[in-house]
């Protein structure tokens, strides 16, 4: 049963753009998958270790800027730049982790917020590297050929497959993590950090490892973001609302679950984008995030284990 569900989900993931190929829907699916990766990234830290970070935009921004700068200044193609962006984000996470994990609970959350703001201000003002508030723009992506055909980057479908593979990677990584020692350590830390420390878990090391893994995926998603939208500026990739959106997707979907971020992203991003269309087209208004806030309040009040967290036991102990 479980295997059939997984195979069907995979088929659906890779066949989706063949079924519906209208650009708006492909764009919608790309956004959903990108936010799934970001939600999964946040879930690795926030769900498993229980450390609430309000600064994950730092890692998204680090990945986005790395990919962009490598391509613009050194001519390294984004498909190398994206994983490198992830690695850079994971490296940045190390010092941040060693500093911020000296604090606990809400204090940790506030410290990540402060770090994210400092890094945003650095990106805004380090003009020789980041081009400051003007941002970075790529006009063309390098040619890639498969036999005779070269990939048409004006079409959205190649991007869909790239993000589908990244999403799969993030979900598999979450699953593997939940099965390894790091996952067990993380859960112990989430339940009771003092007891975890007492039974000999190096809680700082475990939390930094989880943060670093989490940052890697946020960085990869950031690299993809830069390549897909072809334009980034500090407020677009380092801002507080981005960090908050990641938290919401992970929490609404269901913390500590493997499929939760996907569910959270489908609910929030799909509905959010549809609301955005309705508000913009019919009323010329911007404010679709009102839906995010409302969902978050409802979920924390009535479904603290998240949508997938609540549904999961009913569909036969799926992860």
């Amino acid at each position: 049963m479980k295997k059939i569900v997984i195979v069907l989900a995979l088929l659906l993931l890779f066949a989706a753009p063949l079924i519906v190929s209208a650009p708006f829907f492909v764009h919608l699916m790309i956004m959903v998958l990108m936010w799934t990766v970001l939600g999964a990234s946040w879930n690795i830290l926030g769900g498993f270790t229980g450390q609430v970070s309000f600064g994950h935009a730092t890692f998204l921004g680090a990945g986005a800027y790395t990919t962009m700068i490598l391509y613009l200044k050194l001519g390294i193609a984004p498909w190398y730049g994206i994983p490198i962006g992830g690695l850079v984000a994971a490296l940045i996470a190390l010092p941040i982790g060693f500093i911020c994990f000296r604090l606990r609970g809400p204090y940790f959350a506030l410290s990540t917020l402060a770090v994210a703001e400092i890094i945003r201000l650095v990106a805004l003002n380090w003009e020789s590297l980041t081009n400051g508030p003007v941002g970075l723009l790529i006009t063309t992506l390098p040619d890639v050929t498969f036999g005779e055909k070269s990939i048409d980057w004006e079409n959205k479908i190649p991007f869909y497959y790239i993000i589908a593979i990244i999403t799969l990677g993030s979900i598999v990584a979450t699953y593997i993590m939940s099965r390894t020692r790091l996952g067990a350590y993380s859960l112990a830390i989430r339940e009771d950090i003092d007891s975890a420390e007492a039974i000999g878990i190096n809680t700082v090391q475990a939390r930094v490892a989880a943060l670093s893994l989490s940052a890697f995926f946020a960085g990869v998603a950031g690299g993809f973001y830069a390549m897909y939208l072809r334009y980034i500026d500090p407020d677009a990739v380092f801002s507080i609302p981005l960090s908050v959106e990641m938290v919401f997707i992970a929490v609404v979907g269901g913390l500590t679950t493997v499929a939760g971020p996907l569910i959270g992203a489908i609910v929030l991003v799909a509905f959010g984008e549809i609301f955005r269309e309705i508000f913009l087209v019919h009323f010329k208004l911007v404010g679709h995030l009102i839906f995010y806030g409302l969902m978050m309040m409802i979920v924390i009040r009535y479904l603290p284990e998240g949508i997938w967290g609540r549904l999961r036991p009913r569909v036969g102990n799926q992860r």
Partner: protein
Amino acid sequence: METFVQSIVSGILTGSLYAMIGVGLTVIFGVMRIINMAHGDMVMFGMYGAFLSITFLKIDPFLSIILWIPIAFFIGVFIYRFLLKNIVPAGELNTLLYTAGLSLFIANLVLLIATGDYRTIKLKYAIMPLRPFGIAVPIPLAIAFGMAILITFALYWFMVRTDTGRAIRATSQEPEAAALMGVNVDRTAIITFALGTALACAAGVLLAPSLYLYPTVGEILVAKCFVIVVLGGLGSVPGAIAGGLLLGVVESLGAVYVSVPYKDAIGFVIFLLVLLFKPSGLFGVGKS
């Protein structure tokens, strides 16, 4: 020397308003252990209140504070009674996430109603700054400073002299003991939350003529608020006042002597250093 004095003076003027916002946040944390991410949005609400007063009712923004403080108080009662009350027992992190949701909701509601345009309030009597002893003092900021001091003193008197104030302080020190002594903790919580909301809103009204207003201004303000209350020690009222003044002065000195673009970063760096080395706050009165 003159620039030094000038930046200290402007720092104290802005700092007095930061202090007011911080006091609101810190009393709410002290009594209910709520880290209220929506606090900045209450300030934003006050700013738009001032804007509405002058555009539609033709009331001077500083006068309109008499109208907005009670309105914000009732909004605070409503938010606590119907939204937050059931969340608080679920723990600090859940309330943190919940108020983050609330913050996004309020900011976007205002965005839908008022659109994202930047607005300013222009006062006829505030075109030229005052120049006592050759130091430039913008008139709106000077009036706001005076009123902030008045309101803060009134609050201090309320906390020290009245029974409700004593109940708030007692609950914040030891909720269970306070309940045993006959303090109605539930009612105290509602009053405290409403009081904190009213303070934030009042600060917003006072700040409005000196800042640009837009629906997401709360994000920046709430981040600054956290810096202030952590500097002073979470839960401590005198700490928040000192923290607010300190942040105001540090920002304005930083803008002159370090660099304008990084002036906002200085506050956050100090914030991190304090969190790491003295989490009970600079004055050692907060509880961590």
